[in-house]
């Protein structure tokens, strides 16, 4: 037996280096595969345990929160409340449990307002969760910072303002965005002042986030937006045009008119799109003068806008383009001349057919 082993070792040592190399590599691979399999096994059981913990504690924390809130109506239950606070505070030292507690709080807080929402915020203070969030702001990990800014936003913690502001020029875009949301959620339009100095681009995603935050408040005091409409940052201008539409900024008419000749095509188009919304009739004349030297999208936007803005005087001009080669312009012309009615769901019906123009069935009717 030992001879056999000795012989194979000898044979191996006498074989070609490539063979030897390949043999070593395959031993290495086999070892790695074994190692990976053991790791996979332990990883899977760890994840399974984590899943079980999550499910159990999620239920527990939901019940605790409900119990806490329910006890709110009853002064005798104060002791019970203290117990829950102490328990949650203790649990929150564990990272996973802290996350579960926060998620539970937010799951409810995001859906309700009024006393109950205030009670949840109060609980966030009392359990000391706020302290761990503010101390994480100093973390070196950008994702941890962004997460805690987000948490402070969701719990509407105004006190954190002074600690958050120094981070406003954070090198990571994600952190800056979270801070912008914090400012707007807690300070409404005052929070938007960062637009004055913003140099980076505000993506459409960020714009939607900010508009949605504002959208949740009623009776906001609206500042004059003209300065942002004239910003050098195009994304700020586009964002402000959306604001101007939502908050009916009639005061911004002059600024919007000047945008009709902006260098950025997208801004020009959006400016045309808002003309009918604010009823800026002077704008119609401005665009009309050089309409056909503008790009096709602007022309389409113009005719679309005229669906609501056309005055009887404009009809002859409009009518000239009933055979325009662009589908959308043709449809707009027909709408303005009341030849067809198009519903919001894009279904339509033919109203009248003028003697000098018959509607091309191929291009309008699905039959």
């Amino acid at each position, binding site marked *: 037996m030992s001879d056999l082993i000795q012989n194979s070792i000898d044979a191996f040592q006498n074989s070609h280096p490539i063979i030897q190399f390949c043999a070593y590599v395959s031993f290495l691979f086999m070892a790695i595969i074994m190692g990976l399999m053991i790791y996979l096994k332990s990883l899977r059981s760890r994840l399974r345990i984590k899943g079980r913990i999550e499910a159990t504690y999620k239920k527990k924390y939901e019940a605790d929160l409900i119990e806490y809130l329910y006890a709110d109506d009853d002064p005798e239950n104060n002791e019970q409340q203290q117990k829950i606070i102490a328990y949650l505070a203790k649990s929150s030292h564990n990272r996973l449990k802290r996350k579960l507690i926060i998620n539970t709080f937010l799951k409810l807080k995001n859906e309700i307002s009024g006393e109950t*929402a205030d009670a949840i915020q109060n609980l966030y203070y009392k359990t000391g969760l706020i302290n761990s969030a503010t101390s994480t702001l100093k973390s070196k990990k950008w994702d941890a910072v962004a997460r805690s800014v987000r948490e402070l936003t969701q719990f509407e913690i105004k006190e954190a303002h002074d600690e958050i502001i120094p981070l406003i020029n954070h090198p990571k875009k994600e952190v800056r965005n979270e801070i912008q949301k914090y400012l707007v959620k807690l300070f409404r339009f005052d929070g938007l002042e960062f637009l004055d100095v913003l140099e980076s681009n505000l993506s459409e995603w960020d714009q939607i986030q900010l508009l949605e935050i504002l959208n949740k408040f009623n009776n906001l005091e609206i500042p004059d937006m003209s300065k942002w409409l004239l910003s050098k940052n195009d994304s700020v201008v586009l964002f402000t045009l959306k604001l101007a539409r939502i908050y009916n900024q009639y005061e911004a008419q002059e600024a919007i008119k000047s945008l009709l000749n902006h260098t950025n095509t997208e801004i020009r188009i959006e400016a045309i799109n808002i003309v009918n919304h604010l009823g800026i009739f002077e704008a119609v004349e401005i665009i009309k003068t050089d309409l056909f030297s503008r790009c096709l999208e602007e022309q389409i936007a113009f005719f679309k806008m005229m669906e609501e803005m056309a005055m009887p005087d404009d009809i002859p001009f409009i009518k000239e383009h009933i055979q325009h080669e662009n589908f959308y312009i043709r449809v707009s012309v027909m709408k303005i001349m009341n030849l067809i009615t198009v519903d919001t769901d894009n279904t339509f019906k033919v109203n009248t057919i003028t003697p000098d123009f018959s509607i091309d069935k191929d291009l309008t009717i699905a039959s």
Partner: protein
Amino acid sequence: MNLSKKIVLAEDNSILSKLLQFKLEKEGYQLLIATNGKEAVNLIEDNRPDMILTDIMMPFISGLEVISHVRNKLEMKTPIVVFSSAGQEEMVLNAFNLGANDFMSKPFSPNELVIRIKRLLQ
């Protein structure tokens, strides 16, 4: 008198439905909870509730379909309150067209909901 009043709540946020359950049971209502539209329809068919609360956006069968089913297929006149989120104005409009009685925009105050339910059940 209120003891027998049954309310079906269709809402996929478990903790919100638990909170509302506590609040409403305290007021003496009996609450039946569904986590999606399909369950809601089953509960409504089996229990003939006095009131229906439903979220608009739910898995599989939306709140709109629940309303449509109750009004058109089951031909019930049960008061229906829908929960909507900001931006779903169009859907709320559709909900009213289908026969919803009232709506609450999320985030809403649970106490206000209780008041509205009381008024509708009078």
